[in-house]
Every structure is written in C-alpha cells, then in structure tokens.
C-alpha cells in the first residue's frame, strides 16, 4: 500500500494526537488520591536502595553525557548519592552535614553554612523519599496520568529557581508510587534526565554506607 504525503501527515497527526491525549490531566480528587499515595509510600519507607542513570543533554553536543550509580536512603535523613561510572564520586548527607568524596578528594561541610546546600539536601530527600516533593510554594504543579504512571509537571514560581530551570517533570510508578524519572529542563532547553531503577525498599542498610570516609 502506497501512502501519499497527505495521508502520511494525517497519520502522523493522529499519532501526535494519541500521544497528547495519553497524558490525561488529573481531576482534583485524583490529585488528592495521588498525593496521599505518595505520602503514604514515603511514611512506610524506612530505607531505599536503587540504581540511577543520569543523562545530560546539551543541544550543541551530538552525544549526551551519561553517568550512573547507586542511591541509598535511610530514615533519619541519611542519603548517599554515588556515581560509579564514568568516574567515582559520592555525596553523603547525614546529620546536617554533607560529605563529598571526589575520586579520593574529600570534603565535609556543615549544611548550616549555606542555604544552597540546605536546598540541595531538601530536594534530594524529597526525590528519594517522596516526602515534601510537591513544593507548591515554589512551583506551579500540574498532574497527569500517562500510561500506568503519574506525571507531575513543576514550573518554578520562585525567582531563584527560575534563574536555572524552566520545568521539572517527575514520573511516578502507578503502583508503587516511587519516583521513576526526574527531568529538569534549563532555560536554554538543555536538560538533565535521571532514571531510577531496581528499587529495593526497607532493607537493613548498614550505617557504614552513610559514614564519612
């Protein structure tokens, strides 16, 4: 069967239409349920271990910059965000302190010394645990159902965030309600996509994982 150019464009238009409609905006009742499910998942979670893949897209580069690693969380605001590839780097948040090990170069900082670091810690905790992730004071958030998953589109209203990002898209698993993807788009439309996988919840994670060494 031969398709004319017009038929091809009509088919493409229909496909685009299906794609657009596959993101159905949630009703206020559905938003309430969704947020309550994320919050309940967060409260039941005492620890989390998962893998992540980070893709940085720069418009001027042909190839994305890809890195990957592991993420550990334990209640009591303990986080270890560790890059394994293409180089070794990890940051640990524990008891109001931040510890960085950049391929053997170590540095410890009090979070109280910087508002930026406090914000970073809060964002990471929100990302990992789901707690306080929907910051409606600093973002206008719209919620969608996309396939089996949920999508929260967060557009910053806070002037400090607006300097760096135009939008953050958070994709949550429709069953477990943990975060699957986080896409942060910059003003230049370059973006960073972090995909989380292999979630293991409520394991007994050793405190040593969060020790500064």
């Amino acid at each position: 069967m031969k398709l004319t150019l017009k038929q091809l464009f009509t088919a493409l238009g229909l496909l685009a239409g299906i794609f657009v409609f596959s993101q159905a905006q949630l009703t206020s009742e559905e938003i309430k349920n969704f947020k309550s499910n994320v919050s309940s998942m967060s409260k039941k979670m005492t620890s989390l271990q998962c893998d992540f893949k980070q893709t940085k897209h720069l418009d001027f580069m042909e190839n994305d910059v890809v890195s990957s690693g592991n993420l550990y969380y334990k209640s009591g605001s303990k986080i270890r965000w560790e890059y394994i590839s293409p180089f070794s780097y990890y940051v640990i948040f524990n008891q109001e302190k931040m510890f960085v090990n950049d391929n053997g170069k170590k540095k410890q900082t009090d979070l109280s010394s910087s508002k930026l670091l406090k914000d970073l810690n809060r964002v990471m905790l929100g990302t990992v645990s789901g707690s306080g992730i929907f910051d409606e004071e600093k973002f206008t958030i719209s919620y969608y159902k996309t396939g089996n998953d949920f999508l929260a589109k967060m557009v910053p209203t806070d002037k400090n965030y607006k300097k760096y990002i135009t939008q953050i898209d958070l994709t949550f698993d429709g069953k477990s309600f943990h975060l699957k993807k986080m896409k942060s788009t910059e003003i230049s439309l370059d973006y960073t996509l972090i995909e989380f996988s292999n979630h293991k919840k409520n394991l007994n994670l050793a405190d040593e994982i969060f020790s500064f060494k």
Partner: protein
Amino acid sequence: MKTLVRLGLILIFLSSCASYMDSFTEIEKPIEYYTPEFLNGFEENSFKISIEAYGNHFGGILAVKKLDENHFRFAFLNEFGGKMLDFELIEQKLKLHYAIEALNRKAILRLLETDFNLLFHENNPILNAFQAEQFLVLNAEINQKPVYYFLENNRLQKTISTGRNKEKTRLEYRYDSPEFPEVVISHQNFKIKIYLHLLNKN
C-alpha cells in the same frame, strides 16, 4: 665595595633579561604550522575536570565540541548535571552563553579563555624551532604571548606560555588514552591547577 654592588646589580639585571630560550639551540623550522595530534579529528568529547584553587577543590564535567577550526564550544557541568558555564572560544576570543553568578567573574573567564586557548589551538604558525635536550621545541604565539610546544618523538609533552621571558603557564600531557591525553594546567603566578581527564564514550 661600590664596584662589587654595581657588578652584582648588573648581573641581576642581565640574568633577568636572559631569554627563556637561552639554553635552546636554534634549528631550521621543520614545519610552518602546528596542531597537537590529539586535536586532529577532534569532534566532541567529555572530560572530568578538577580545579584546585587556593586549597579549594572543585569538580565536574567539561563537554567540548569543535564547531570549526579554532572555534570550540565548552560547557562546564557539576556532577549532578547542572550547567555552571557555557561558552565558545572563537579565534581565541571568549563568547559567553551562560554562567552561574558565582562564576560570572572577569578573572575566572579570562583564566579559562587563556588556558583553553593554549590547549585548543590548531594550525598555529611556527615562528622558530629549537632543540632542547630530547625535545624539539616549536615557538609560536597564543594569547598574544610566546608559546613553546615541547615535542618528543613527534608527540606533544608540554606547552609553555611565557611573559617577560618567564614561564607563566604550563600544560603537561600524559598519554593514558590514545584519543586524548590527561592534561594538567598549572600557573607560576597563582595557585590554580586544572586537571582534565577524558571520559569514556557512552
């Protein structure tokens, strides 16, 4: 006594006037233009970048793309992917696209401009050539200052930029990767060192 002091002063004056290349033996120029071999065929690459500045350590990723001859674009990202700096070098001039407030400082941009010009420069006209120990030394100009390429077996081992006949900036290369060497950029006048290490292609 007076004569001794005068002689001392004259000696100090003469030694300060000594040229950086006094110990070099001038030879016939083997080539008219020079491009470091790691820039031949360079299209784009990502590097781990580490900066040691006055006891502080900063790290991240440097993405580099060649747009044209002596025209490169750079983006400096933190480990989490956040863009800190985005600029081009066009014929040794920096064109800024984006900088976070903390890095949008003339001194920082000037340093990156001069340092990266020394590393990413192609088809540089050679003014003179010398032999110095095991090295073939090619003398050219970058940032309107003399620059010396030290080659051993046709491979660039160090690049030295001078000012008033003294070494100012030194780039040293270690060839762990066949594609692009590990680079250390150090400065004589201030305690800032930059390390670049090629990241594997995804």
